[in-house]
């Protein structure tokens, strides 16, 4: 084809500023909660919802999509993983099975 603008096809003024990042949450069916599906770039929230539709609901229909600016997400510190997520080992009292059933309690 005889397209003559191979070097500047974006038409967006050649700005190299990247679009901001958004986190996408999709609810796949009624009754379930929104689940993080991934992230994408979009110039604003409205376009982010539309891009999410193209990227994350194309084959497996969702009933609802949320987008959140990635910078609005506060994450736990990966370096203190131990402190946050230490296994429940040795803390058996956190589980129901640790406790014995009181006499006379039915339907447990």
């Amino acid at each position: 084809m005889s397209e003559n603008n191979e070097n500047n096809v974006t038409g967006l003024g050649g700005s190299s500023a990247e679009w901001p990042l958004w986190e996408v949450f999709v609810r796949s069916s009624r009754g379930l909660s929104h689940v993080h599906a991934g992230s994408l770039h979009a110039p604003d929230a409205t376009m982010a919802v539309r891009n999410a539709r193209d990227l994350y609901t194309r084959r497996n229909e969702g009933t609802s999509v949320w987008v959140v600016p990635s910078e609005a997400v506060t994450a736990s510190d990966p370096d203190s993983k131990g402190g946050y997520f230490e296994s429940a080992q040795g803390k058996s009292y956190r589980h129901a099975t640790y406790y014995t059933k009181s006499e006379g309690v039915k339907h447990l």
Partner: protein
Amino acid sequence: MSFASHDSATKQSAGNAITAEDIREGGSKAPEDVARYALYLGDDALMLAQRLGWWIARAPELEEDIALANIALDLLGHARFFLTYAGTAWGKTEDDLAYFRDEEEFRSCRLVEQENGDFGQTIARQLIFSFYQYELYRRLVRSTDPTLAAIAEKALKEVEYHQDHASQWILRLGLGTEESKRRVQDGLYYMWPYVDELFHDDELIESLGDAAVLPSSLRADFDRRIAEILDEAGLDLPEVAGAYGGDRSGEFSEQRGHILAEMQVLARQHPGATW
């Protein structure tokens, strides 16, 4: 044939949505004149799908790349429906019609054949065509030809999305930077001479009555809605004369041959090739 309605604009393999295979194997043979009309609709969708496919790996961002590719695939789907149905009149397949017709046998409008240009020019074409196609399909769902009506019903939800995509970009480019505004405005001027052809009535369509939609009947709604969105985007409605010739014959189309050369070369060099 009956095609249950479905509520998804995105789902590709809904159990009960119409498919090209349904049309081919459904046993209903298109009347000759309906088939010739189906070529208008199918060729428009096919040519625009081919044009939009060029953007794959070239769009400004990955996300936009995928959006344009999705729209192209939707249009390719519409083309498959219409060409498959048209083919039943002459014992031809969709591939026979897409790959083995010559330039003067296509019936696409010139708007969809125009070069992509920059992103602004492509969005200008998307705005015009998706608004036109929306008005068309919205009426075609009441066609007295059940297959055309079923195809329109399937395609309409997709076109609603194409309209929305084009509108969002028209607003952002129009209200964006000086550069983006200039480019999309230039794109609108570039495409505008080919608008009139979309609304051109001809003998075939007039003879089809309620099986088809009279193009001129779409013009008022199209003009009103286009004026609204351009006004909102701060863009001028181009006032330019229509390009000469407007009968889908291809006689005055500079682009059609170039598109077909690329689209048809593989099928013609290797007949029957499969992936």
